């Protein structure tokens, strides 16, 4: 680590100022505002504001809609994480086995990451559109009547696929790098030790990938809980009947559409705590616990 000594006491603060200003204006200030508002209640016209203590949080805890949203979020986050990590691991293993054109495939597989969540949502919305989409047409031929506008499970499937698809690229890159850092001689030694390809994968490759896997697990949960707002907004808007109304979308909907600022703020404070918890887990365990 290079250490620089400043004679001038002001200079280091000046150099840090732009970053500190951005952090303060766009992160700390809104966060503080959210915490403050979560203890307040505003009337319908925004004229009177009163302090209500933990009432907003208590209301959430007894609200069936919020608990439903919590449940939806868990199902959604787990599905997105499992689907995108599973598929990307499969692709990474396939590319790792290739001898030629590896970089071409890698480049092609990384492209979806450049697509904005809302665009990804619309893309899949078109593919699965019950009227004009190509997938419902195929599903119809095998006797399945796809309609994510009326079917809760279809809607969930759609947002899960659209969200997972976008994250595959990111996971794929990390998995490929992780796989390539495992020395070939380990797999060769296992082959001589009588382990077939499947056994080698589970006994050698997967345990040695565990640091990568754990890192991606946390990143994917955070992605599914927060960055998928655009996907939801562009496809189902939380519907039908709250089936895809994940926590982050509910914060937006209750606050900006429903104008219930106090409740929305309380919800975002809860989300903030979840992010902090995940980040702590990430930093504490990623290096220590999952190393071999």
């Amino acid at each position, binding site marked *: 680590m290079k250490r620089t000594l400043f004679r001038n006491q002001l200079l280091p603060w000046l150099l840090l100022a732009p970053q500190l200003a951005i952090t303060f204006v766009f992160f700390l200030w809104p966060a503080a505002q959210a915490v403050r508002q979560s203890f307040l209640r505003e009337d319908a016209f925004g004229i009177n504001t009163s302090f209500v203590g933990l009432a907003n949080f208590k209301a959430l805890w007894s609200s069936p809609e919020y608990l439903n949203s919590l449940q939806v979020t868990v199902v959604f986050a787990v599905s997105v994480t499992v689907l995108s990590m599973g598929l990307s691991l499969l692709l990474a293993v396939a590319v790792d086995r290739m001898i030629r054109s590896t970089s071409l495939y890698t480049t092609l597989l990384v492209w979806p990451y450049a697509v904005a969540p809302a665009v990804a949502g619309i893309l899949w919305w078109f593919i699965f559109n019950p009227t004009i989409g190509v997938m419902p047409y195929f599903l119809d031929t095998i006797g399945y009547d796809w309609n994510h506008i009326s079917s809760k499970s279809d809607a969930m499937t759609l947002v899960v696929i659209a969200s997972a698809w976008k994250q595959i690229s990111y996971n794929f890159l990390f998995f490929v790098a992780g796989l390539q850092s495992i020395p070939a*001689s380990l797999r060769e030694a296992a082959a*001589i030790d*009588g382990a077939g390809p499947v056994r080698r994968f589970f006994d050698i490759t997967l345990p*040695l990938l565990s640091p990568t896997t754990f890192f991606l697990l946390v990143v994917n949960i955070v992605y599914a809980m927060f960055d998928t707002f655009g996907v939801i907004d562009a496809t189902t808007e939380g519907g039908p009947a709250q089936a895809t109304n994940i926590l982050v979308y509910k914060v937006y909907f209750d606050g900006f559409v429903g104008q219930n600022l106090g409740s929305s703020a309380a919800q975002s404070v809860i989300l903030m705590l979840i992010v902090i918890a995940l980040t702590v887990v990430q930093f504490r365990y990623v290096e220590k616990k999952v190393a071999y």
Partner: protein
Amino acid sequence: MASIILDKVGKIYAGGTRAVGDVSIDIADGEFIVLVGPSGCGKSTLLRMVAGLESISEGTVRIGDRVVNEVEPADRDIAMVFQNYALYPHMSVRQNLAYGLKNRGTPRADIDRRVAQAAEILQIGPYLDRKPRALSGGQRQRVAMGRAIVREPAAFLFDEPLSNLDAKLRVTMRLEIKELQRRLRTTSIYVTHDQLEAMTLADRLVVLNGGRIEQIGTPLEVYRKPASVFVAGFIGSPAMNLIPSRAVPHLPGSAHAGIVGIRPEDLSVAPDGPILMQVGAVEELGAQRLVHGHVEGEALTLAMPSDALLSDSLRLTCRPGSLHLFDANSGQRIG
């Protein structure tokens, strides 16, 4: 226990590059064979073909009485020790040793007995429950060998197993490998680029160059009668002097040879010797001294006792019958 027979084995890579060609070696049961050559000579490729980690493009490899060309590495009844040890980092030493036996469905009690036995032979008993990263280089090397011997295979394959160790440990481990092989009498193929390692370990040496065999023989045969200029220059330290015969016209036989080979230790100072050497740099090795110089513009090295007198030029003679004569064009030995 088994013999290994390589018959006209060759390796051609997908791009058409030939790595190994026309290699035939008959390895007797229990024999210790060392494949030696400079890097890129195809020795590792050859070993990996025997192991089944590389496909065999030409010829046949037999282990025991069956052709193994299409047999999976696991079913060839061989064990391999890798240059980087290739220990499974997430498993304890015990698990590392047991993995190959477990995969083959060996009974639990049998595994425990064999692991304990191997640990005793290699003196790694105290480390059985450690992870490989908690071991020193020499201990890791022992574990890697332990993983090979617990399997009690028909053959050991060693791929430069000592090159990651420091010089002193390398000498110790070299001796341990030799003693272990003497004791177990398991057919072994050992790959190295270090000619000293090759000389000390081998029952027979196979000197490879450019994917082809230059010479097969016991270490002394190869040392005393190198079959080609390449082998003459590669085996032996300090390396043999290889001089165009016009620079040493007075030596017996040099008239009809293109290249004359003289080992530095076969040269000695003699007042009326036929070679006049201009002395350059001198290396003191303790017991002996290496004198580097020139004769008629050609480099020449002389090994002499460290108490002998030095001067700017020396008259040298060579021990009778110690000359190696090679054809200039083919590089082959002619006398």
